[in-house]
């Protein structure tokens, strides 16, 4: 509701014109006017000016009308001198009244504008909240609508497979693949829309590594875990579930691209203000030209390598998750061949009273 520059100046000049006109007319009929008429006429002009051209112009006009009131309507005319001391009272009362009324009008308008602005803001917040809720509901609905029939397909395929039809096993596997793909798409939309609703908490590194070990035991053999230094308690502020998914994804990739018997090292260490989880493999590594592109959505390491690369959404989602929690996901070649992927999250120190309440490890 602010009056903008040019139109404000135009309005100020217009109201000055009105003021001059009113003054000229009143001077013309001065003999028939009471000072109250003059005061009321000026007051009206000052107030309208304040309303239309802003407080500063209104106040200036109040002072100006105080002067012209004195010069043209308070005897002796044509000077600032005041013959009757009572007229001073009239003039000062006029000045105070016009200034106060200009001020009050301004405040009332400012309050109105603020109320409007606030209601616009809360409307925007409300509509944001509403659209977030709608997105959540849509995601929930899509999950439900896709996964409920998948459950039936899987369940019935399992029954048929139990009867000895191997084709039914394929149906069950494909249902799983479809479900994994639904999950990835939902993740991608969550990450890109920023509605992941991350649950960022103080979490402990060994807890995350343990959960990763548990989730990867089916497909990744020969994992070696390293907490450095080995008896340290490393804390970070991160979303446990999402970070776990990133780590499992990195281990999964490492397992896919490494020779079957090559070891995969997984570890955690504190570096400055970061808690770093790293996954190092002895796979073929990543060519220089691909190093930037591996984090792009739908990028695949090897064209046509459908089985190994899946939908190609893994690393881009992982990077999105890392960054959404104030961390990062990086790649460096491993000394002696292979890749090292690192998930870095903000580290936190253990409060003194917590540390002292814990007796050190038994070994």
């Amino acid at each position, binding site marked *: 509701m602010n009056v903008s520059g040019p139109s404000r100046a135009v309005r100020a000049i217009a109201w000055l014109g009105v003021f001059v006109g009113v003054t000229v007319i009143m001077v013309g009929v001065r003999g028939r006017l009471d000072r109250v008429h003059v005061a009321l006429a000026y007051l009206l002009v000052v107030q309208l000016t304040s309303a239309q051209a802003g407080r500063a112009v209104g106040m200036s006009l109040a002072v100006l009308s105080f002067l012209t009131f004195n010069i043209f309507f308070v005897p002796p005319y044509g000077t600032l001198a005041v013959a009757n001391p009572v007229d001073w009272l009239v003039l000062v009362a006029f000045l105070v009244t016009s200034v106060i009324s200009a001020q009050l009008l301004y405040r009332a308008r400012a309050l109105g504008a603020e109320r409007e602005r606030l209601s616009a803001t809360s409307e925007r917040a409300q509509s944001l909240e509403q659209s977030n809720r709608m997105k959540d509901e849509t995601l929930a609905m899509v999950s*439900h609508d*896709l996964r409920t029939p998948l459950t039936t397909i899987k369940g019935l395929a399992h029954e048929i497979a139990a009867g000895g039809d191997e084709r039914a096993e394929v149906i069950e596997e494909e249902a799983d693949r479809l479900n994994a793909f639904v999950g990835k798409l939902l993740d991608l939309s969550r990450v890109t829309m920023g509605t992941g609703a991350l*649950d960022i908490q*103080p979490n*402990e590194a*060994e807890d995350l590594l343990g959960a990763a070990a548990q989730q990867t035991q089916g497909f990744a053999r020969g994992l070696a875990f390293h907490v450095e230094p080995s008896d340290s308690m490393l804390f970070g502020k991160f979303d446990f579930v999402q970070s776990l998914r990133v780590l499992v994804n990195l281990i999964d990739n490492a397992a896919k691209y490494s020779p079957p018997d090559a070891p995969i090292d997984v570890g955690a260490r504190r570096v400055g203000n970061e808690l770093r989880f790293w996954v190092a493999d002895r796979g073929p590594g990543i060519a220089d030209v691909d190093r930037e592109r591996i984090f792009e959505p739908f990028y695949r390491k090897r064209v046509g390598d459908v089985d190994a690369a899946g939908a190609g959404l893994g690393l881009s989602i992982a990077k999105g998750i890392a960054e959404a929690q104030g961390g990062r996901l990086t790649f460096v070649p491993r000394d002696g061949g292979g890749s090292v992927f690192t998930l870095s999250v903000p580290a936190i120190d253990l409060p003194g009273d*917590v*540390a002292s309440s*814990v007796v050190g490890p038994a070994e």
Partner: protein
Amino acid sequence: MNPSSSTDDVVLVIDDEPQIRRVVRNAMEADIARVIEASTGRAGIDVAAAERPSLIILDLGLPDMEGAEVCRAVRSWSAVPIIVLSARGSVQEKAALLDAGADDYIAKPFSTIELQARVRAQLRRAKLAPAAGQTHVIEADGALIDLATPGVKRDGVAIHLTKTEWQLLRTLMQNAGRTMTHRQLFSAVWGNAYGDAQQYLRVHIRSIRRKIERDPVRPRLIVTEPGVGYRFQMEP
């Protein structure tokens, strides 16, 4: 119904989708339990009260009631194990349902084998539960834990636990096989009014693991349920 079912357990399936009820029924009647069905939350609560099933499988997304509401209603008069099925699979939902009294949570689409395993585990746990109060000694994965003495030995060597660690371990063991949410563990050990809940819990869990687990990075006794809580494993 499978007349050859070798148990007299009865499972109540509460689900508005007839196809899902069918899949669950077929999975259960392969030698696990007899199945009764309800298609709304309200009907499910009534059937549960009338029939007293051995276990309830509750699908979320019922047309008439929130899943947590059904859990709380049943939990107000019964300790029957409740397994929740959900298509959403978010940890927040899972934790909220466990807090509301559910015993386990399976994300859709589930495999028949997984569903059967979870149901068997809950039925077994429910049968052991009355005895669990008297059982003070658990021997698992080379660790001997005696809640009565109390004392812990790992491979025959006595291990010292702090008071807090004991309380935490006792809470987990008394609910062995069941995922205890962060909230449940915290209120059991510290009460509700305490500082940085998450961090205290993490610190003490790690500390206990370092003492009783053979390999604390690959815990086999106290298992992490990501984003939800911790579970004491009955059969590592």
